[in-house]
């Protein structure tokens, strides 16, 4: 029987990251300050190295900031290591802080709970195409295969030097020219397409990647297959509930409201993208900045349902795509 003794590997030192902090919203020319507290639970002074790593959320490229953050931590003490970096390319990054001991062994790793957003102040909005001729609306539901492309850029500081909340929302503006059927008991909504004589309206719906449940819940992989089919009520109206009825809030195709129907309650809006760290509908432990933006440019699709009571005629709509921040 032969015993082979291997030289012992470097034992991990008892070093831990206590806390981290960093600037979250920075101009491209500004210094970004990182602060890392490292606790040494060993009986001797230890060398600590933190290789701050940024990962661009769009390109997924990693960037390790150099020179790396280093320092000696006294036995049983906690040291606060501080450094600054500059000229990091514009973008939004997640941050991780791997900690290495003097032997190059990684002993701890902490991930920042909020991203770093680096940019230059700007606010732009473009929509392509400007006008879509939908041709003849077929009876029933129809999706218009022309994707509408929205290019956007938004980078503003708020008073705390964090991301300023903003929304891009869409609505029709038909109330001035919609008059309904004279003598009708009920006045329909002016949202969507309005006939040339202002008497009739056909609602419009839209879909973009922010709408509808994910594939595990809804069964539709939008990233692969694009907009879901309009003929399936689960996507058009909402998935069925066990107790009957449908979950209208989980529909993939959502109605475009009219400006006249919108109130100060954001539930009445149709928000395409946005970021709001203080709206609990979007903020979670994994999304503390309330970010529901889509990479620019993003696309949306339109669909309409010409039901059995739809009236023949020429229909038009002015859809306003609005960038709004308070």
């Amino acid at each position: 029987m032969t015993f082979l003794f291997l030289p012992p590997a470097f034992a991990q030192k008892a070093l831990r990251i206590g806390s981290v902090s960093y600037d979250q919203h920075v101009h491209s020319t500004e210094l970004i300050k990182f602060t890392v507290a490292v606790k040494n639970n060993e009986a001797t002074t230890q060398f600590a190295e933190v290789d701050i790593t940024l990962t661009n959320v769009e390109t997924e490229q990693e960037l390790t900031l150099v020179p790396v953050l280093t320092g000696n931590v006294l036995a049983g003490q906690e040291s606060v290591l501080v450094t600054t970096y500059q000229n990091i390319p514009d973008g939004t990054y997640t941050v991780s802080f791997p900690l290495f001991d003097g032997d190059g062994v990684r002993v701890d790793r902490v991930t920042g709970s909020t991203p770093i957003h680096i940019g230059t102040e700007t606010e732009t909005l473009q929509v392509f195409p400007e006008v879509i001729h939908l041709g003849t609306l077929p009876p029933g539901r129809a999706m218009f295969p022309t994707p509408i492309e929205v290019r956007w850029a938004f980078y503003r500081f708020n008073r705390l030097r964090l991301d300023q909340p903003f929304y891009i929302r869409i609505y029709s503006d038909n109330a001035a020219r919609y008059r309904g059927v004279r003598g009708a008991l009920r006045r329909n909504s002016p949202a969507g397409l309005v006939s040339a004589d202002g008497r009739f309206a056909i609602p419009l719906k839209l879909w973009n990647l922010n709408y509808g449940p994910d594939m595990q819940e809804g069964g539709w992989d939008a990233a692969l297959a694009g907009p879901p089919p309009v003929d399936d009520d689960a996507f058009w109206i909402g998935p069925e509930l066990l107790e009957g009825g449908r979950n209208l809030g989980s529909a993939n195709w959502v109605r475009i409201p009219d400006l006249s129907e919108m109130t100060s309650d954001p539930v009445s809006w149709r928000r395409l993208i946005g970021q709001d760290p203080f709206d609990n509908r979007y903020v979670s432990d994994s999304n503390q900045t309330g970010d529901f933006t889509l990479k620019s440019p993003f696309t949306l699709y339109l669909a309409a349902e010409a039901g059995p009571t739809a009236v023949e005629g020429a229909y038009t709509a002015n859809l306003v795509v609005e960038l709004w921040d308070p």
Partner: protein
Amino acid sequence: MTFLFLTTALAVEVSPTRLEQAISADQPTLGTLEISNPSSRAARVQIQTGPYRYLEPKFRLPSAEDWFQFEPAAFSLAPGASLTVSYTITPAANVRDDAAAEYLAAILVDQLPEEPNVIARSNSDEAISQASPQNVGGQAKVTFVPRFAVPVYLTLPEREKKELELAGLTVRVGESPDLLRFGVALKNTGTVHLRPAGSLVILSEAGTAVESRTLGRSLPILPGATLELPALVPMPGSAGRYRAAVTVQADEALLLQKEIGFEVTPEGAVK
């Protein structure tokens, strides 16, 4: 079905992106907006006012929507060009006798498409009869109008009163067991909107700072509104008694502070 694509709706830039201005109830106030076209194609721009759309529901907001006049209100911008648009704010006659100190609106800057959607501009018979005959029966057309909405806050300095009440500070376990969720309740008891900012510090029983967070929001708290600012903080590493101290500043002379004590049990509960 025929699809006709036209060129990109171009981006214009608007400055300022928010208008917070002191005005007089008795005489008009003048100001300017800068509209620029950094793109490579000409842009048609239209400026009008609209109602202010705030995030808190069920709020009655005094409106300044009808007070604005723009010169010019519609124009074309060549590529790379900028234009200074002058506006005149003329308060309504009843403002002098009104009690409100702040009036709100939105300035809407629209980029109009090259192909106008020639339809009836109103629902009158005359307007409808003048609608373009290009809309052939059975056809449908959608026009997209990119819009920038500049929120407007107009204050009357003689009625301005900035007051803020720190109504409460609460703590509980957050959405995951390793987080504490603090709630700082603020009530605007003044007459104009405020944009408070502040910080939250967690102190151990010995008085050393364990954690700190900035808190606040850039969204305004309107007069009479109550707002809770949330703050998520990692659970302290060890059980024991702690203090949470919050400092909120809404104005140079408006600084509020509050402190509460809480206990983290070995099981991770908060008392």
